[in-house]
């Protein structure tokens, strides 16, 4: 600790104004503030500050993502071994997934942070912490078979077009990680849909079992919802899907961490769930009686468990920058996300992952929702007079 401090002190002059690496100051600053909470003191206004800062906030979100990450790693191995009909221990499955997922994470962070640093240096601003979370969200929303060059492309797209062109963290109006996923989904459908959800790297002496099907639940359910895995399997996450999205249980743990620490908005999470249930029940009521396997018959709570809904509602919809900001606005925003998710899933088989699109759509509408809420607030204030 002392050594690190000494080292930083010794090289600091080179990064100061007039120093040899003056231009690289934002990069040095990012590294220094990462290692040490700076000894800056309050200068005006309040003399003491709450201990929380953006680093701690983002770190808390990462902690909340850990259950989905670990479960996802295990599930990658589990699905792989299942497809080949192999017996594998918990540790074997986890290790298999670990080595598959780790490169994706490394590429995502390396490329994304690289872009952030370049922008910070060119535009001479500080490196913001937003990418600490985004860099983990991108891998978790990808299929494990994703080529690494696509992860890199996604990370670049996400940082440049999702964030930096608007001015960096806090200025963007759409969730950058989700924007990157949507971009890859539409630009490279071959890598983002179809038979890609399970890692099928060959295993010596094993062939794919007959029962293996590469279709995810969202595709299955459009054809015949009764063929879905059991609700319990979907809840725990023993199914195919993007790395982090399969286990609603892991997302639930994450939700509890986010709500407990006060970092994630419980209003948004709860209203997303309510929106899904309301729309699900509504469609149940309208479902054609002569087609018992039609998607409209799907029990409403299935929508909470399958696909990426739980992951999206907990980690994506709650992004405070792109969500609605007023209390009332958050309820409206969440309800609409939930309802649109179900509508897209049921009525638009071309885009099975409804939650991604409905969150992005509501990101766009969030300022409008807030505007209406604030206008109403002003009207109420005037009435009080």
């Amino acid at each position, binding site marked *: 600790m002392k050594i690190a*401090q000494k080292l930083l002190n010794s090289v600091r002059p080179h990064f100061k104004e007039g120093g040899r690496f003056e231009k690289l100051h934002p990069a040095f600053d990012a590294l220094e503030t990462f290692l040490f909470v700076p000894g800056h*003191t309050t200068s005006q206004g*309040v003399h003491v500050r709450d201990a929380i*800062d*953006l680093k*701690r906030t983002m*770190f808390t979100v990462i902690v909340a993502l850990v259950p989905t990450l670990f479960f996802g790693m295990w599930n990658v191995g589990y699905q792989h071994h299942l497809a080949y009909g192999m017996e594998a221990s918990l540790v074997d499955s986890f290790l298999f997934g670990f080595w598959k997922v780790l490169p994706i994470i490394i590429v995502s962070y390396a490329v994304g942070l690289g872009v952030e640093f370049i922008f910070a240096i060119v535009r001479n601003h500080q490196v913001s912490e937003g990418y600490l979370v985004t860099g983990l969200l991108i891998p978790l929303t990808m299929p494990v078979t994703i080529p690494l060059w696509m992860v890199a492309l996604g990370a670049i797209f996400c940082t440049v077009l999702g964030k930096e062109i608007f001015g960096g963290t806090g200025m963007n109006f759409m969730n950058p990680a989700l924007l990157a996923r949507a971009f890859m989904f539409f630009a490279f459908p071959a890598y983002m849909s179809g038979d890609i959800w399970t890692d099928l790297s060959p295993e010596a002496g094993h062939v794919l079992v007959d029962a293996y099907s590469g279709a995810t639940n969202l595709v299955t359910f459009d054809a015949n919802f009764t063929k879905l895995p059991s609700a319990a399997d979907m809840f725990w996450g023993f199914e195919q899907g993007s790395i982090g999205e399969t286990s609603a249980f892991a997302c639930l743990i994450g939700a509890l961490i986010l709500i407990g*620490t*006060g970092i994630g908005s419980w209003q948004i999470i709860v209203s997303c769930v309510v929106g899904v249930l309301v729309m699900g029940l509504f469609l149940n009521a309208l479902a054609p009686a002569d087609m018992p396997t039609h998607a409209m018959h799907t029990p409403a709570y299935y929508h909470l468990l399958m696909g990426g809904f739980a992951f999206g509602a907990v980690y994506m919809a709650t992004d405070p920058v792109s969500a609605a900001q007023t209390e009332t606005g958050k309820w409206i925003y969440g309800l609409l996300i939930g309802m649109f998710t179900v509508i897209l899933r049921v009525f638009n088989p071309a885009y099975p992952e409804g939650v991604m699109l409905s969150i992005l759509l509501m990101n766009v509408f969030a300022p409008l929702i807030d505007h209406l809420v604030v206008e109403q607030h002003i009207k109420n204030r005037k009435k009080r007079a």
Partner: protein
Amino acid sequence: MGKVITIKKGYTIKMDGVAPKTITHLALSDVVALKPHDFPSVVPRLSVEVGQEVVAGQWLFHDKNNPKIRLPSPVSGEVIEIVRGDKRRILEVRIIPDKITKYAYFPEINLPNADRDAVIEYLLESGCWSYIRQRPYSLIANPDDIPKAIFVSCFDTSPLAPDLGFIIEQERAHFQTGLEVLDKLANGHLHISLHTEVGERLSESDFRGIANHKFHHFSGPHPAGNVGIQIHHIDPIQKGEVVWYVHPQDVIIIGRLFTEYRYRAERIVALAGSCVKQPQYFKVITGQKIKSITGNKLDSTNFRLIQGTILTGKKTAEDDFLSFYENQLTAIPEGDQPEFLGWLLPGFHKLSLSRTFFSWLTPNRSYNLNTNNNGEERAFVMTGQYDKVLPMNIYPVHLLKAILAKDLERMEELGIYEVSEEDFALCEFVCTSKIDVQRIIADGLAYVRQEG
């Protein structure tokens, strides 16, 4: 006891170094000063010159824009120096006080029979008018205005704040007289706020004999004691309206004026904070040298001395002088040491309203807080944080953004006239992005005052 107004949003910061209720009388310091900077609206024009002998209650300077507003000398003695800053702006009027204070005596006045104009005239003549302040803008009130109400908050919920009930207890009769004076000015709208738990209990029966006043009982955390919050909940300010308010200590000073017919500027100041060896209350004179109060009572070398609270006070030094309206001095450690991976540690000793540090497991502990910024300034990211500590029907972030955009109409719609910097201090405290909320609010108020 009538209806209790419960404040739900907010937070009372518990800190080490609370002053126990012992009052020490301090002798006058060798120099005493009055600082025009304490009166933001006043453009000072001197009424005295260097070398002149003055008595307590004699005007030292008046406001160029409103010559009726005059600031009185707290002591008698010789004007020794006029300290000036940039562009010859007057910073301090320094006086070497006499050993025994000589007072200017004002004509006797029979308060019960005096009318409103006579009372105002008497306050202006004595200079005590400067203790009556107004919202919006938190400035000295304009004597030509008719306020829609006058507010006196008899409790203070700020961190390490002096117990106002205890202070009022010391001079109950003068406090009573002061309220009678305000009653004359308030046209039947004198509001007195009490708290159900904070501080020594004052009860309604303590205030018999004042004709037209209303009592309001509050419960809940800081900022319940802020007069702005109380106004908002009792009789909110609309555009064009003015509300006056007076601090209880200043009510006592006004009470003394109408009983003793002289300006006696003693007030009780709490010296508190974790860097104070023995926190306690002191009876001092407005304008007293800070050093004479802190003496050798401070514990460490690396501390910050603040006139006022840790949320709203001003950084000061021992060679400074006690500000005009001040009731509190706070000394806390400077937090200028970097902390290795501080954002990653469990943080059992770190105060945060979020539960991201494990200190949330011990909600009732008191903290030894220092002045570290605990992070760097960022753009707005988190939402809903400010709303949790601002007990007003106001959308804080939208108001701040309207101010940053200099959108006058929007500021008015979102309630700029109701707010004061101090009401937003907790918002600034909790802010993850470390934004200077109070400065933005101050800028907004200045802008509205200039353009509105």
